[in-house]
């Protein structure tokens, strides 16, 4: 499959979203709300749960499934308060020495008036800076679409994984074609050159691991894919939990310093 076909698969409405993975992988999930400043952003889910008995903090971008839910969740496009909630919960995780698991699934941070007024750029920037210093393991998994700074804001991790048919890009291929060629209808061509597939990004060493999907994508067999995601996270956690807190932050810094 080429990048464009993978993108179509990643965008299919039947593809399982973050909530499905949270409920299948973890036990005792408790969702926590709000950035303690402005409001709760339903495009980002946060909370605590256990994985094989170990408490973890979960941060996840959620697009929603039904049309009504999609609208409530703003199609997974977070506002600044979403990123600030994520940061609040990640700092809480550090305080209580809990690993952080992030699920990335967004076309990008929301582009709107309120988002600009409340500092979308500042919110993302702060996450990049602070995530770099956290002294607990961080694992980020791209489930379907990882769009630009809105994805990176929860993906400054020790390990970054991608589902086999997901994409992670600097901008949607439509936006890329529109900016560089002034023609968004050339999106397919853009997808071809942008190196946005899990395979391309593993080759560039921008991601560390690809989690396999069956023919037809994660939507063809969500339970099996959830099990694979669970195993990949659990294996990485075993490895990362052996590393000292300071070393974890150094490892993360060095991972990104190399780009």
């Amino acid at each position, binding site marked *: 499959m080429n990048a464009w076909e993978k993108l179509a698969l990643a965008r299919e409405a039947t593809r399982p979203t973050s909530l499905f993975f949270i409920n299948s992988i973890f036990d005792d999930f408790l969702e926590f709300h709000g950035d303690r400043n402005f409001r709760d952003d339903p495009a980002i889910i946060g909370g605590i749960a256990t994985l094989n008995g170990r408490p973890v903090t979960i941060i996840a971008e959620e697009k929603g499934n039904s049309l009504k839910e999609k609208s409530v969740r703003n199609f997974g496009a977070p506002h600044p308060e979403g990123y600030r909630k994520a940061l609040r919960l990640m700092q809480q995780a550090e305080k209580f020495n809990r690993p952080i698991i992030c699920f990335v699934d967004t076309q990008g941070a929301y582009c709107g008036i309120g988002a600009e007024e409340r500092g979308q750029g500042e919110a993302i920037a702060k996450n990049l800076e602070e995530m*770099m210093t956290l002294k607990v393991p961080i694992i980020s998994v791209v489930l379907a679409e990882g769009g630009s700074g809105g994805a990176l804001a929860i993906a400054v991790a020790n390990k970054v994984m991608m589902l086999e048919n997901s994409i992670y890009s600097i901008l949607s291929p439509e936006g890329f074609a529109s900016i560089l060629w002034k023609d968004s209808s050339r999106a397919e061509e853009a997808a071809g050159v942008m190196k946005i597939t899990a395979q391309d990004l593993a080759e560039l060493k921008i991601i560390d691991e690809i989690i396999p999907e069956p023919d037809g994508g994660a939507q063809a067999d969500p339970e099996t894919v959830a099990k694979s995601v669970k195993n990949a996270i659990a294996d990485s956690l075993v490895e990362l939990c052996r590393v000292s807190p300071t070393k974890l932050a150094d490892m993360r810094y060095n991972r990104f310093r190399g780009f």
Partner: protein
Amino acid sequence: MDLKEIIKRRREKFGDDLKAIKGKKKGLPTPEIPSDLFLVCPKCKKSIYKKDVREAHGVCPSCGHLYRLSAVARVKYIADEDTWEAFDFKIARNNPLDFPNYEDKLQQNAEKSGMHEAVLCGRAKIDGTKCILCVMDSHFMMGSMGYYVGEALTRSIEKATKEKLPIVIFTCSGGARMQEGMVSLMQMAKVSGAISKHAAAGLLYVTVLTDPTTGGVTASFASLGDIILAEKGALIGFAGRRVIEQTMRQKLPADFQTAEFLLEKGFVDMIVDRSNIKKVIGKILEMHG
């Protein structure tokens, strides 16, 4: 050459012709504006003398409109005389996507702007205080950040941390460099990481947001200064205006995403006149010395 001298020379060259035309009573000829000496201000539409603009560091003497300064002109103005010491990092340009014609485009931009890439980094004194100074230049591929810019900034910040120096960054950028794809996105994390180490060392970081500062630069180091200054009227934002208008299906107010708008919303510490900016940075550095 001053204005009087120019007028004198032009008289010598065209004086008789002008008289001849006047004699025929055809009215005054349309004045020919020599584009190497004058320019028309895009804001007040007046013809202004280029030298006056240059001497005012890119400010229209008639209406105060700010021109985008080249990094070289900015450094010349901000750094104390004979203190600028540019870093030569020898960073290779790269083309991680093998993007068609990207190398040619870089070369054309280098020739057009006189810059090697979109940022200048070095050591300088500002009103007597030593610091690391980085200045982005919109004349090189709209100041966009790819590997080169991200790496040059990161190394500069690391130097500042190592040498226990404050760092001042003038931002001026359309955001991440599209032609380098995900490698550009990673620069946002890399530079922000370097800033986190500089901050942890208790050192001062000042950003000056100039026109334009958008996209991935706003969403990383531009927004992370301990003190964030901005130039009057500068466009500062995350998403592009057109994108937001399309998303919201409504027209945006004229002052949307200006420095003044950000000041009101609480994302900028102060707006500083260009004529005053060196003095303000100098004072800030001195008080943190």
